[in-house]
């Protein structure tokens, strides 16, 4: 007999070891997420995927589903908390969507639309994060980093290069590259690396292809992220 739990009141089947998020997706239910990616183990840092399971807040990307669990996800309460998490991500970095090359292809922006985030609510931090244009093919704009560590994980676990890592801690945490000079151009990073093509926001950008696809025809311009993500399996 297959096992089931209740997702927003609807029965969802799961296999042992599947997380709440995986099982919900397999059953066609989208849960917002930023640091989770189908090709990587759960990370659990962005907390956008929080749900209530049996009345307790949990990260749905990391918690294995259990028989009979009652999960609340697409509720006003959970979406209000997710919206606040997005607002936190927006104010801690420098996110100027109208001038960003990633606009329309950006998961952070798309989720802000999805969750109807109308203002940033909190005071902006305006951190000073210089860009790194030292690499011939790739530009790093740290202003937009949300610390999902997908580039860190992809470079370490797929490319075998560990080009990226996080240093410092708390609100001062930031991305560094694998070079004493601190410059991407002095690493063995390549535009073909998995890590070069995984950033959900606009930190890691290819040079010389900016705005090739006009704003208006981009990934999340025609449909909401909740639709695109399920269709494209991310």
């Amino acid at each position, binding site marked *: 007999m297959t096992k089931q739990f209740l997702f927003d009141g609807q029965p969802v089947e799961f296999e042992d070891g599947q997380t709440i998020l995986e099982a919900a997706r397999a059953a066609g239910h989208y849960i917002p997420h930023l640091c989770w990616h189908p090709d990587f183990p759960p990370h*659990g840092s962005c907390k956008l995927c929080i749900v209530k399971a049996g009345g307790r807040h949990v*990260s749905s990307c990391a918690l*294995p589903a259990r028989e009979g669990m009652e999960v609340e996800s697409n509720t006003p309460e959970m979406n209000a908390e997710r919206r606040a998490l997005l607002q936190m991500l927006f104010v801690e970095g420098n996110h100027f969507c109208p001038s960003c090359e990633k606009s329309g292809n950006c998961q952070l922006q798309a989720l802000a639309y999805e969750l109807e985030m109308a203002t940033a609510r909190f005071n902006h931090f305006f951190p000073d994060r210089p860009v790194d244009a030292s690499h011939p093919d790739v530009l790093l704009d740290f202003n937009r980093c949300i610390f999902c560590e997908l580039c860190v994980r992809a470079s370490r676990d797929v490319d075998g290069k560990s080009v990226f890592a*996080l240093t410092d*801690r708390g*609100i001062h945490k930031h991305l560094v590259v694998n070079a*004493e000079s601190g410059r991407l151009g002095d690493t063995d990073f390549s535009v073909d690396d998995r890590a070069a093509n995984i950033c959900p926001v606009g930190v890691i950008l290819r040079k010389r292809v900016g705005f090739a696809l006009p704003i208006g025809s981009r990934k999340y311009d025609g449909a909401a992220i909740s639709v695109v993500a399920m269709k494209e399996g991310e």
Partner: protein
Amino acid sequence: MPEVDPVVQQVVARHGGDPSHLLQILIEVQEVFGYLPAPSLTAVARELAVPRSRVEGVAGFYSFLYPAPIGRYRILFSDNITDQMLGSRALLEALCRKLWVEPGKPSEDGLVSIDTTSCTGLCDQGPAVLVNGRAITRLDYRRVNEIAELVRKAVPLDRWPAAFFQIEDNVRRRDALLGPTFQPGSALAAALKLGPAGWLEQMRLSGLRGRGGAGFTTHVKWKSCRDAAGPDKVVVCNADEGEPGTFKDRVLLASHAERVFEGMALAAYATGARTGLVYLRGEYRFLLEPLRALLDRMRGDGLLGRSILGEKGFDFDIDIHLGAGAYVCGEETALLESLEGKRGTPRIRPPFPVTRGYLGRPTVVNNVETLAKTTLISLGGGAAFAATGTAQSTGTKLLSISGDCALPGIYEYPFGVTIERVLEDCGAGDAQLVQVGGASGVTIAGYEFQRRIAFEDVPTAGAFMVFDSGRDPFDIARNFVHFFAHESCGFCTPCRVGTALLKGYMDKLALGRGAKVDLADIEWVDRLLRNASHCGLGSSAANPVVDTLIKFRPSYERRLKSLEFEPAFDLDAALADARRITGRDDPAAHLDGGRGR
């Protein structure tokens, strides 16, 4: 400065080229150079054959590692609220003036740097400072003058007056643990007579719960570890006593360490572990040599090593790792990461350490006091242990008492003691509130002093800070908020951003610029912290604010500029230009429909 490469090679060789010793290696490299020059990180990465980015990530995580040049004398003032109440901030300013430096900036000649650090665990004899990692207690203006003089003359730390470094135990009340003298080996001998299963049964009968704050039942942890698959199990002693206002583990390690280490061996006997690790907070660096010497003595006495007390197959030994200034490493999975030489970021649970802990091996992580208590259970039996305290909180608890009281220090009470009784004993006649359990604990107001210290009422890892009627609850909460913002590891969004936001709101209120809407925002951020954080640091970071907002709201409200919403600017007036350009001034061209005119 010595050449980088030979130094690094030597240190790495001392650690057998083991990348899991990365943090220990960086600490030792820094001891040579005073800080961690960029080429030293490159060299460490090369010698360990790990990516440089990983080394830089670790070097940047810990407060006591310095990737940028710092003064040859690094003076860090303990910044806990209790130190501040004893005048630490004025003393810091005085020392800065004397030495012509700004806080947080090394002097131009590189001689000295002065800054603050999180609670150093010397609240009963503060204000305290760390000078190049060594603790100096009972700071006053005279001592500040002497320190300024010694620094100016560049006198080596070893030649500073010994009285500076004197650290007292200040034990004020002794009960089951601190009272009797302990015969090393006796607890192990008693457990060996019972056999591993019999000994674990006594642990079950004792009902002992973890003294680190969470209160998890110890025998369940031990049993799960014993039953977990995996040959090489590990016992870890969590001596990362970072909770502000807590210092009982320091006293246990200074004067009762044989009980703590024997407790680790008792845990090993019950679980089958062969490896023991102590994670000693960097602030307690001064305990490292005495503890290592004690381990040597225990090996000599057959209490550690192969065939302990002649029992064939009972092999267990203990190594000590140093922390480097990161409160979050007191969280057991962050501690394990740190022990593995990584950034101290809490892991996803499950799996729990008892099944997958240190290097993936089944691991028991116990607090210093918990381990010391197991020697009592072995000697007197589980039932006798459970006879004191309350039904759900058996045995005694060490309290670290500081703040506004006549007799700060260590007090051992059976669980269930009322806060009132404790206040009476420590000579706190004018207590307005007590912070029990440190920054992450509970704020207890006067009308609650009948409550009891116990897991089922007021739980605590041991901190008990007293504040008299002259203290402002808002200032206390603000100090704790600054602490959490400084100590957040930054892994998850709510804690990384939420603690920084909270700090901003509390600072705004402190400047008298707050409005009622800020209180609403504070409550909203608190909710996110509690609900969405990855670990206990984030979810308890809101506690001091939540508690003081409920119990001492006037302390916040009198700092507000207005009790109503105060926008920073007049939105309707800002539209005047638009009205002029469009030639409109009808009611519909005003935000309030013209009613305000």
